[in-house]
């Protein structure tokens, strides 16, 4: 049945083809051909000159122009080589001008000979030269005061603990004669200065060499070799545990105890006495807020190995490798403070009377630093020796008991902020900290800028809003300010500029609209475009091909015709 129908159907074209073979249509009129050509051309014109630009315009993403090369130059250290010309004033109250000049020249010469790290060098100035200074005035890193003292057996130096002042005592006989080319006094001063700045130099060399920027300074390598491995290691360690620079730090002091006592402490006066002065000194670098809390019933996390009793010393001990698990992060309420800036936590832990005294097994220490997080102090208060066997902690921690922990905390705070450990003068160390911070900020802002440049280059589909471009411009201008300030020895100003550069660089890098880039997978695009472009595109393209073929055929025919 079906075969029959098929037969009927299939026989028809055969028949028609036979019958119509003789009746070909008349050739098309040139008029009609031309109209068809115009129609196809008009459609394609609309597509190419209207459709395509609209599609391009609506689907392209805004990418602001960024100075990519300049940004990469900063990251590669080509735009700025940080230098640290430290100005040291020499106060010579008892010396005539000429002799002072001579001493200065000799000392400077000795210093230059000693120094192998060209980025960091000391420039001596006489105190009374002040008036001749130009408009650009460098910060004074240190004042050296020469004091004549009779019957002094040997040269002696003394660094003031409260100021940035170095006293050198000498006997008047040691003043170099105007003609001599070397003097024990000059070498002594030079050696003293070299010693004072040794750690700073090592840190600087480390910072610069660990960054891409340092590679361009050839002398840094030789400097790095000169540093003893122990010093280098301690510097690495200190830099690793110091907090990232921030404009505001929140200091949170917490009293934790596993039982119910002590439940109060003289915290106001302890903060007032031991922490506030340090914060005051640090205020040019960062702002600080302080908050405190008392947390009772703070038990160790169940996975932490319990303290063990050491019979030989009669103490409870924690193993050093378990200290990282000392903080029970799941249960102890140590949420970071609200507001911008990181929180530095200081924990005063009073162990339960049954586990007191508690110390670290290896070192018998009771305090340690948790890198980039804070510090811990275990306070083992004297237990009230009552006749009862039932021991209990004091209910209240008086100010005297808080002295040791809070001095430790202030020390921990300084090292968490990255302050060098030597020399003893705090203002001097803070001056150093300013220079270190300026350098690190400069380098980190530069590298962030470079990362942004590389990111925008490697991801062509992310949008770059105009705010990012303006942030980048601000970053670059402040980076060059900072670099300029460093060159002039104005470290405070350099730090301020570097701070702005760093914030702007971070802002542009973490721009929200850029991070959440529009992601359309290719399948998605096909699913959206194909249903429309397929049915429309096929007739259009076929029409175009036909026309092109016809035009080419016509052209060929004309050429053949002309050739023959």
């Amino acid at each position, binding site marked *: 049945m079906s075969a029959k129908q098929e037969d009927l159907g299939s026989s028809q*074209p055969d028949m028609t083809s036979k019958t*119509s073979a003789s009746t070909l249509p008349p050739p098309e009129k040139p008029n009609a051909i031309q109209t068809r050509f115009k129609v196809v051309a008009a459609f394609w014109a609309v597509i190419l000159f209207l459709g395509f630009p609209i599609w391009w315009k609506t689907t392209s993403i805004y990418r602001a122009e960024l100075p990519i090369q300049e940004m990469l130059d900063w990251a590669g250290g080509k735009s700025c080589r940080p230098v640290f010309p430290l100005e040291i004033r020499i106060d010579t109250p008892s010396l005539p001008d000429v002799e002072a000049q001579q001493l200065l020249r000799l000392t400077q010469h000795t210093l230059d000979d000693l120094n192998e790290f060209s980025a960091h060098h000391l420039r001596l100035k006489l105190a009374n030269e002040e008036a001749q200074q130009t408009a650009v005035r460098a910060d004074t890193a240190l004042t050296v005061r020469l004091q004549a003292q009779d019957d002094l057996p040997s040269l002696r130096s003394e660094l003031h603990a409260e100021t940035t002042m170095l006293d050198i005592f000498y006997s008047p006989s040691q003043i170099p004669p105007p003609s001599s080319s070397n003097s024990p006094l000059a070498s002594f001063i030079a050696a003293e200065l070299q010693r004072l700045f040794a750690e700073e130099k090592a840190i600087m060399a480390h910072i610069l060499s660990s960054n891409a920027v340092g590679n361009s300074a050839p002398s840094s390598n030789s400097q790095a070799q000169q540093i003893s491995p122990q010093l280098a290691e301690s510097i690495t360690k200190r830099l690793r545990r110091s907090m990232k620079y921030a404009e505001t730090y929140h200091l949170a002091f917490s009293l934790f105890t596993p039982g119910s006592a002590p439940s109060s402490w003289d915290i106001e006066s302890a903060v007032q006495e031991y922490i506030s002065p340090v914060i005051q000194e640090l205020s040019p670098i960062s702002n600080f807020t302080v908050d405190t809390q008392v947390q009772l019933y703070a038990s160790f996390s169940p996975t932490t190995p319990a303290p063990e009793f050491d019979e030989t010393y009669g103490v409870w001990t924690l193993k050093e490798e378990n200290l990282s698990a000392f903080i029970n992060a799941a249960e102890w309420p140590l949420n970071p403070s609200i507001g911008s800036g990181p929180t530095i936590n200081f924990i005063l832990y009073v162990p339960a009377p049954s586990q007191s005294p508690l110390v670290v097994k290896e070192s018998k220490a009771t305090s340690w630093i948790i890198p980039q997080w804070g510090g811990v102090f275990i306070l083992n208060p004297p237990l009230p020796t009552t006749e009862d066997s039932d021991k209990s902690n004091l209910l209240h921690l008086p100010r005297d008991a808080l002295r040791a922990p809070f001095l430790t905390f202030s020390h921990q705070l300084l090292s968490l902020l990255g302050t060098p450990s030597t020399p003893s003068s705090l203002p001097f160390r803070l001056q150093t900290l300013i220079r270190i911070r300026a350098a690190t900020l400069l380098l980190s802002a530069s590298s962030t800028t470079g990362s942004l440049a590389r990111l925008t280059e490697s991801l062509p589909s992310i949008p770059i809003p105009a705010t990012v471009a303006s942030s980048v411009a601000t970053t670059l201008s402040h980076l060059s300010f900072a670099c300029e300030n460093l060159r002039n020895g104005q470290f405070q100003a350099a730090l301020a500029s570097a701070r702005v550069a760093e914030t702007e660089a971070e802002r542009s890098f973490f721009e929200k609209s850029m991070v959440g880039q529009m992601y359309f997978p290719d399948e998605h695009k096909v*699913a959206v475009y194909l249903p429309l472009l397929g049915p429309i595109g096929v007739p259009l393209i076929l029409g175009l091909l036909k026309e092109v073929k016809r035009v080419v055929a016509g052209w060929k025919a004309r050429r053949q015709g002309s050739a023959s």
Partner: protein
Amino acid sequence: MIIFFIVALILAALSAGSAASNYHENLLLQPLPPSSLLASFNFKSNTTQTSFEQQHFRYFPRALGQILQHANTRELHLRFTTGRWDSESWGSRPWDGAKEGGTGVELWAWIEATDDETAFSKWITLTQSLSGLFCASLNFIDSTRTTRPVASFEPTGDHIASGNLHLLHGTLPGEVVCTENLTPFLKLLPCKGKAGVASLLDGHKLFDAAWQSMAIDVRPVCPSEGECLVQVDQTVDIVMDIERSKRPRGNPIPRPVPNDKLDCDTSKPYHARDTCYPLEKTAGKSWSISELFGRTISGSCPLADGQGETVCLRTSPLQEVRPSPDSVEASVSDQFTRCYTLPSSESFDLDVPEQVSAATDNDVPLEEPVLHAERTIVGHGQERGGMRIIFNNPSTEKTVDFIYFETLPWFLRPYIHTLQATITGRDGVRQQVPASEFIKETYYRPGIDRERGTQLELALSVPPASTVTLTYDFEKAILRYTEYPPDANRGFNVAPAVIKIAAAKPIYIRTTSLLLQLPTPDFSMPYNVIILTSTVIALAFGSIFNLLVRRFVTTEEAAALQAQTLKGRLGGKIVALRDRIRGKSAKVE
């Protein structure tokens, strides 16, 4: 509830007496008919205003204190509630409803700010931070869920009169309150749920209850003399089903009572060995703290002061009670209440055996609620619906005046002109009356699509012994594709209404939350739309293009043309081949 008033008085006296920071905790147990138990935990801690501002936290939780300071919040009320308070059988609400919220999460706060916009941005800061602190979706309280109630809430703290305080209120009726909200709640307590009455709080039992409400209130308190204090008041109220809670933890599946343990009514004529008419228990069931909560109170929290009434039991004076031997009973003037002081380190248990005497005269009288309220969505269809609110005044002589406050999501568009009222007396006669007869004042703030919800506050009064029903119609909006949640067919939560009954101390009632069904599309819609429109466009385009470009010839001419082309010739050959094969097979057939 008199006892709550007494406790409040005692606490007020305590806080007035000692101006320094202190901490107080308290637990009240009260059996409720038919076989439930209300456990009401209250924790109060104070800190002085100066140490609060200097961020020296002792009893006051640091995390919460910093949030409040950062968001300029002067007074805060946060509620986590699940379940429904059955006022028909349990009577009036604990704390007069002042310490409970609507189902889900409810938050309202007084924020100090110069203008509305600053206040709102601070409010957003507050909700975001609290969201992190309490592991709740409070960050979803945006402008569409935020209202500024006019008459429904009043500050409970002592504020400086000139302060620019802004009240903001937000609800999340769909939030499921669970253990992850309890853990941060307990962390805020000075004793961390490890000592004192808080040691009873366990997520398994708490969220298994028939009704529970966790509340946090922070307010400034300025005693007449001395320094101002900041007080944080944490409350957990739960109603446990005694039978259900007594199930052992290892074997929680209820099983039929064995035959010989059934209490049967032997007076029934059909009573036999195999037939039983269960006897309704009139006497209170036996229970003890360790049975209900699965643990005992592990000593007192040493920080708590105001010794004397840490655990209170409110029951018939004839009821026999066996507390742990170490505890001390404190006398309270109220004849129904017995209070016990917790031992400092030993655990405390309270055993309440089954009451033998059936005399109910001495039972604690249940207080009749002042008003019953019920709110439902009526109507059918995807486009329109109606809201019906029923207020029932059980009193025979007193008229009840109250504020009715509701916030409606923007996709529910009420027609306030359809607001109608009917009144039903005790005789059951329904009467249609103009709504203005009950509504004394109206505050209405219409919603704006995707920006804010509708806010409706009505000052109503319901005459004695009557039921007033308010109804109005609403329209359901159609949402955009991306605005539907993943479980769109479940419906959308509508926040409970809040009723504030005017009294010396306002009484709050909340209705249950509602589920609103919205027209929900099929979510493959965008691709369907793309494909359909593309097909239509392609069809139209294709025919027009072909009309313009193609050459029109007769059928014969077309066939002739086709035969000339390579394709045509090939096609012809294939057809011929096929015909031959077909022809052969046809012959074989």
